[in-house]
């Protein structure tokens, strides 16, 4: 039976993200395309953040997985445009994040380039609530704009007093 693209997508959905293993690569939305070109399987991947060290590991993991599944003729292509966004994070992925202790992104809160938007954020008008992934309280505060990886920020819950990571809207 020929390996269809659907089967490849299913295999890719079994590869965990190297830094947040509760998410699969397809949950994360970094796989942009899967296509056969003659005898070669072309997988198009987009990086999350420009400097994310996981990018190289993700590529390696894709090649390894496909090899295990019997596909040795693979070409990985990097695609920058359109840039990765957390809008591509699947609904299932968001729930997995929350269950894992990471607050999922609050949609529509990404930093935009406009000076007006920035001043609103700096003066507190752009504040938004991030619910604690443990107790659900919205009484939380930002500790730092970055957490343990480029895609996260550090928060603290004022109700249950636990620190937690917030997956930034990007």
């Amino acid at each position, binding site marked *: 039976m020929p390996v269809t693209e659907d089967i490849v997508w299913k295999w890719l959905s079994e590869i965990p993200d190297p830094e947040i293993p509760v998410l699969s690569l397809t949950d994360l939305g970094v796989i942009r395309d899967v296509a056969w070109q003659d005898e070669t399987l072309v997988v198009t991947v987009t*990086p999350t*953040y*420009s*400097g*994310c*060290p996981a990018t190289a590991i993700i590529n390696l993991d894709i090649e390894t997985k496909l090899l295990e599944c019997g596909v040795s003729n693979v070409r990985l292509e990097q695609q*920058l*445009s*359109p*840039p990765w*966004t957390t809008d591509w994070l699947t609904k299932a992925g968001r729930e997995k994040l929350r269950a894992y202790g990471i607050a999922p992104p609050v949609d529509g809160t*990404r*930093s*935009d*380039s406009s*000076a007006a938007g*920035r*001043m609103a*954020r*700096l*003066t507190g008008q752009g504040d938004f609530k991030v619910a604690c992934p443990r107790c659900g309280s919205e009484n939380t505060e930002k*500790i*730092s*704009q*970055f*957490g*343990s*990886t*480029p895609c996260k920020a*550090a928060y603290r819950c004022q109700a249950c007093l636990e620190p937690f990571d917030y997956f*930034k809207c*990007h």
Partner: protein
Amino acid sequence: MARATDLISNDILFEWLLRRGDTALVLGHRVSEWCGHSPVLEEDIALANVALDLIGQARMWLGLAGEVEGEGRGENELAYLRDAWDFRNFLLAEQPNGDFGQTLMRQFLIDAYQVPLLEALKGSKDERIAAIAAKAGKEVAYHLDRSADLVIRLGDGTAESHRRMQQALDALWSYTGEMFISDAVDTAMAEAGLAPDPASLKVAWQETVDAVLDQATLTAPEDEFAHTGGLTGRHSEHLGHLLAEMQFLQRAYPGATW
């Protein structure tokens, strides 16, 4: 595919790409020097992540520069095997970290420039430039939120933090003018619809800087003198020291990989 090759000579495009790549690389390396030395753990992590973003952006710009040059040099050769006079970064990026406040002030002054620059580059006639700008622009907008926030908090903080932030602003101000001066490379890029004229970014930059400094209770110096030379390879002494550390491994063990 829309590419600049038909619109401009490769030499000019290469030169312009080095300016973008080298500014990101040198600033990224500077910020990475904080790793393990920051005042608190959260800031250490944040600075390292900003550095990562910048070095990732440098890889994209320098990778494209190498491709355009067509001499077989890639991002690594361009980063590790050129000497100071071949670097094309803004002088501001190579200025020493100083204290935490000075590092954040330098970051803010550059972030406030990069945001409108990358925004404009999203409309470049070269789709490769537009793609890198769209990718980097999202990251830099977030950096600016952070650097502006900290400039305000430290400027409008204690008497000591205010004094240090004013000192940092005074020390760095004369390096900001260089970012808005156009030369033949910039003019050619602007005429070809590939990049904005640097002078056109001044209004947006000034607007951000004025608003943030006002909230930070800091005063920009009135002197408009601008140090120049970064874009033609005449750097301050600091760049050589930075490269000595950054390039050590490839210089001592040429071609080393792991």
